[in-house]
């Protein structure tokens, strides 16, 4: 016996196997991201009041780059519409259109990841410095006149390292007061945005970049966006496979091929959906 | 009633609220035992009576009575009674009704660390000394600011030896931990409360028997978990007062 309903719908459920499978998988994904969102909310509501970085464990707001995030949202939405159009193209028997729409989708996916990786890098070289007198400042760090390199996750500065390497002072390009609610504040005396400020190591109580170790917010941010990024990557690879090597099936079994695109598309839309929530929750709130 | 449970090995209860807990344990076990014995009797009877040798031809329909439904409803009913009648009120009393100031409760902060228990009383001035994590270490688990805060001067902090509690006076213990999760468990007092870092959780009980008691740790906390014990003595009010003033006079949150 062969396995039935691999591409034809079973009469009583009205679905073919892979569609049942993908929806089940998405249900479990809802629980996965749901748990992460729950963790985010729990940690956030139990965070102390006040403004980060003035209060070390208050919840930071407005640290992420909104224009870039908005642009990335648009990129992902575009890819979502192209993938559904690609499926429609197959339905209309237009393979050529399917292929270029799929290519656009995959390009969008990698554009999204590329932009994201720039954002990550920005965070790794962004530091919060808390002084012994209780003041705090955030900005890009310069040590001995050098900026930390690209994707320097392994090459991070901490107070311990400054002391160990006997660095006497650091310079920091203070963040502009871009936040209209005014909760990223700078040390008094920094006259204009991105002004470089010299800080003596001896005055520093804490120094850390925007990495998971610095604040639970970053931990949540990196974990959820990285997991989402992995989904984007996996989805993009699968869609790329469908667009080229996997497209052979169009010749042998067009119906099953169309179904595959539908299933792949469902996953892709889900990834988009997660981002639709992720964007306001981590960028804007 | 107590004798039944003591037969099972439960230590003699030494706190006022223990009676309720013991009763609940007893009643639940009576329910369980009667169900188990009934079921087991039925079970043994059935497998004997309907063994193949005695009943070569099975009956397609099988049992026709509705006893089982009534039984299930009965079980649900008893559970509901135990739940509403005993468990919920007992719990509510335990967490929602701390002793009122008129009852002159003894207040103590209990701090767990790997692998010991420590207790902290406010001292004769009845003022808690200032505490900060930057002063905390193994010998000063409460992080008392001994040099900075006058109120801390007379605080009583007992780190390794037994501390004392007066008999028949409510105790409010604020349970916390400085490293990992421990669990403050005093079997004789029928008190158990996880000690969770970052939280301090109040429990209260009224010891009613003079004697020596042991705190065990009921939550895995590392390789010394089994040896993590604490001791306290329940003594008369006079003995307690004597000990308390002495300790408090010794001042500086005397650390053993």
């Amino acid at each position, binding site marked *: 016996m062969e396995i039935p309903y691999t591409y034809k719908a079973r009469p009583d459920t009205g679905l073919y196997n892979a569609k049942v499978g993908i929806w089940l998988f998405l249900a479990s994904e809802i629980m996965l991201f749901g748990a992460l969102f729950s963790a985010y909310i729990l940690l956030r509501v139990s965070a102390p009041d006040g403004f980060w970085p003035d209060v070390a464990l208050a919840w930071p707001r407005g640290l992420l780059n909104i224009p870039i995030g908005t642009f990335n949202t648009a990129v992902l939405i575009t890819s*979502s519409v192209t993938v559904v159009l690609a499926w429609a193209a197959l339905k*209309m028997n237009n393979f050529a259109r399917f292929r270029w729409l799929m290519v656009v989708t995959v390009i969008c996916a990698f554009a999204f990841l590329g932009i994201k990786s720039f954002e990550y890098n920005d965070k790794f070289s962004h530091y919060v410095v808390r002084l012994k007198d209780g003041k705090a400042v955030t900005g890009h760090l310069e040590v001995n006149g050098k900026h930390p390199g690209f994707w320097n996750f392994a090459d991070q500065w901490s107070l311990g390292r400054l002391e160990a390497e006997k660095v006497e002072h650091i310079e920091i390009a203070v963040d502009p007061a871009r936040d209209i609610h005014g909760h990223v504040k700078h040390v008094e005396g920094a006259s204009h945005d991105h002004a470089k400020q010299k800080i003596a190591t001896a005055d520093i109580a804490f120094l850390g970049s925007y990495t998971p170790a610095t604040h639970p917010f970053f931990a949540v941010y990196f974990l959820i966006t990285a997991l989402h990024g992995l989904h984007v990557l996996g989805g993009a690879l699968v869609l790329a496979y469908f667009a080229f090597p996997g497209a052979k099936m169009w010749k042998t079994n067009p119906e099953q091929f169309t179904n595959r695109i539908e299933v792949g598309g469902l996953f892709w839309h889900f990834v988009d959906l997660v981002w*639709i929530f992720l964007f306001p929750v981590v960028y804007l709130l | 009633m107590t004798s039944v449970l003591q037969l099972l090995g439960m230590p003699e209860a030494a706190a006022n609220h223990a009676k309720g807990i013991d009763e609940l344990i007893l009643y639940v076990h009576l329910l369980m035992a009667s169900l188990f014995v009934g079921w087991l009797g039925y079970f043994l009877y059935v497998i004997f009576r309907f063994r193949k040798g005695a009943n070569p031809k099975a009956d397609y329909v099988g049992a026709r009575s509705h006893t089982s439904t009534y039984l299930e409803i009965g079980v649900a009913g008893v559970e509901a009674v135990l739940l509403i009648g005993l468990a919920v009120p007992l719990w509510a009393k335990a967490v929602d009704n701390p002793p009122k100031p008129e009852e002159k409760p003894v207040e103590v902060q209990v701090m767990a660390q790997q692998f010991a228990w420590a207790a902290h009383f406010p001292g004769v001035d009845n003022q808690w000394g*200032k505490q900060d994590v930057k002063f905390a270490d193994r010998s000063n688990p409460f992080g008392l600011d001994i040099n900075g805060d006058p109120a801390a001067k007379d605080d009583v902090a007992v780190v390794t030896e037994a501390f004392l509690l007066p008999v028949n006076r409510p105790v409010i213990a604020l349970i916390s931990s400085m490293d990992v999760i421990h669990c403050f468990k005093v079997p004789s007092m029928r008190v158990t409360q996880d000690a969770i870092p970052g939280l301090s*959780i109040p429990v209260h009980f009224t010891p009613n028997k003079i004697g020596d008691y042991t705190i065990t740790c009921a939550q895995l906390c590392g390789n010394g978990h089994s040896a993590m014990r604490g001791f306290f003595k329940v003594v008369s009010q006079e003995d307690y007062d004597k000990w308390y003033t002495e300790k408090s006079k010794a001042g500086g949150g005397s650390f053993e």
Partner: protein
Amino acid sequence: MSEQSHNAAASHDDHDHDIASHIKTYLIIFGALLLGTVITVLMYYVDFSSMAVTVGVALFIASIKAFLVAAYFMHLMSEKKLVYSLLVISAIFFTGLMGLTLWGTHDTPKNTLMKTVYVP
């Protein structure tokens, strides 16, 4: 979809037409999603003074966008009952997880008498 057809799409002309009208919907939704994104960002610059309102507005817009994606791109508008029941179940459990966890960490015994200064 007819049982015999191997090329599902090609055989039906009216089907083609159907799909063509779908495409129009997809493009409209695309526009709506972009608009939604812009509104969300604009909302950010409005000070609602209350955090709850801000969160509510942001999530409301996100939910509309999510609805559009799910309903049209994922064809949930015309999906089978089975899929709905599946989604309802996971929605219930997700709500349970989030709600009970939050409730559980906030409903704690009252600490009335003692004010500790130091919680490690």
